[in-house]
């Protein structure tokens, strides 16, 4: 979770405190406001590197694509999704020092608990696909943010379509697998 930590630190620095009076956490300002860090979707930016370098996370995020999208209330990988995941699998096998957490997300049209479970289904569908393409399962973890971390905020299908996603978030750590 090294990457998560870095992303957290980054957002910590940017965060503004929303401290009010009845606060027994001391109103430490910067200590507040970090919970946007997890699952922001574009968190791979923290590792970045140059998109021109095919071994860089930036290349993974931009040239290959770090996310796949889903239809309403489904976890089926679309043909477009498969081609993105084929690229992800290839990259992960070539760059064996990276692990990934696959974050599943849902749009806001659903109850909180169900959307957490649905996001898990989506993330797991991605994981299973990557494993079927040869990525060692030990390098892939799944989590779900349900509807907690939309990247688009309108209440229309144009936004919902982008929020129903599973994002492959890389972290650098030499693994023995």
């Amino acid at each position, binding site marked *: 979770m090294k990457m998560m930590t870095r992303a957290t630190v980054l957002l910590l620095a940017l965060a503004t405190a929303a401290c009010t009076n009845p606060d027994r956490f001391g109103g430490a300002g910067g200590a507040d406001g970090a919970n946007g860090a997890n699952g922001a979707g574009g968190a791979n930016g923290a590792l970045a590197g140059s998109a021109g370098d095919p071994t860089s996370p930036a290349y993974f995020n931009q040239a290959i694509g770090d996310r796949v999208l889903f239809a309403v209330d489904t976890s089926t990988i679309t043909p477009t999704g498969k081609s993105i995941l084929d690229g992800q699998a290839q990259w992960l096998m070539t760059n064996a020092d990276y692990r990934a957490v696959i974050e599943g997300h849902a749009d806001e049209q659903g109850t*909180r608990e169900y959307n957490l479970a649905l996001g898990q*289904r989506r993330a797991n569908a991605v994981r299973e696909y990557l494993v079927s393409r040869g990525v060692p399962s030990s390098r892939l973890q799944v989590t779900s943010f349900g509807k907690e971390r939309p990247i688009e905020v309108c209440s229309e299908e144009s936004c919902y379509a982008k929020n129903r996603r599973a994002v492959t978030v890389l972290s650098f750590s030499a693994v023995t697998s």
Partner: protein
Amino acid sequence: MMKKVIAVLFLWVVAFSVHAQTNDDRPLIVITDGVTEPLPFALPQFQAENSAASQISADITRLVAQDLAGTGLFREIPATSFISRVSSFTQPIAYADWRAINAQGLITGAVTVNGNQLVVKFRLYDVFSGQELGQGQQLVGTVDGWRRMAHKVADATYSRITGEGGYFDSRVVFVSESGPKDNRQKRLAIMDYDGANLQFLTDSSAIVLAPRFSPNGDRVLYTSFESGFPRINVLNVGNVSRQQLGTAQGEMAFSPRFSRDGRQVIYSLSNGGNTDIYRTDLGTGQHIRLTSAPSIETAPSLSPDGSQIVFESDRSGTQQLYIMPANGGDARRISFGDGRYGTPVWSPRGDLVAFTKQNAGRFHIGVMRTDGSEERLLTSSFLDEGPTWSPNGRVIMFSRETQGAGGTSSMYSVDISGRNLKAVPIQGGASDPSWGPLQP
């Protein structure tokens, strides 16, 4: 700050007069689902028995009135209409003067402050029958806890008039929200049922979701993303210490609720794309799997007698409500209307299940009997979800989120009749309320 609020009020009740009790035990109001005309009551300002009590006696009187009128079952008669003055707590009641202004209930009281000690005495009268209703009571507490004293007076009044338990001296744990929709900050908070005495229980360093009170209100279960994965924490409300429920690597745990004895937790565990319901004993850490379908099983809620669990499942293709024995086994579907049903919560009386329903692009909070009959939708909006019951099973609180890029979440309450819908008055965004028990 914390100490002041969490400090247990030392409070006791002394019956100090034995008046003629009404022979008739029928309540003045029987709460039914039909439209009820609010019962008019007169609440002359409680007597300040010493000068230190003058402000607080006014404050307590106002809060008692606010609690009662806020139910929609009572209507306060303005003091400007009063014919009689109540100048002493012990003076005989001039019933004719109160009948003349059509007051059905009359509440009188007296307040004394000695240092930090607060003494509140009150009496309730049935004006039409010209008798005291129940016995006068005396409450002793602290000045800091004056709101609780007022809520106790209102609870006793509500209870004597309706024959049912009250819900005013209770607290709600919820998620306080701030920030834009795509970077929302969430932290656990607790408040009195009416939004007063807001306190935070966690910071916003990790997403927190769906807190649930223990049956006696001493602990709160909630889901936290501290680790990057949803996990269940148990938080002690008194000292805010917390402990994580054991979860294996690769598993997500969420949607917890306490058993009625507070010793076990029922919740959802996701692994390998499948979500099922489990039960863990908090003492031994032992857990048992209660469902094992390839579908999503979540949002479990126990019946008050602990024998059954209502939950949601998409085993039929869409989210629907099911009831199974508390130890697992065959489940029967109870929701059959149009749309999808989720987040079922068994009522404290055991007769109803509250739920969230999605249909035709709208969300509703509704109730149905435990056999699925008599479904009744209480609300309708862009996004209503997550009902929680008042301790007496008469009121439901829930989250309502508004539409669009600037959408925010607030908490509302509504009677199970569908009447008296209103926002809980607190600053900032709020979601996922869990209504705690009446405080001792």
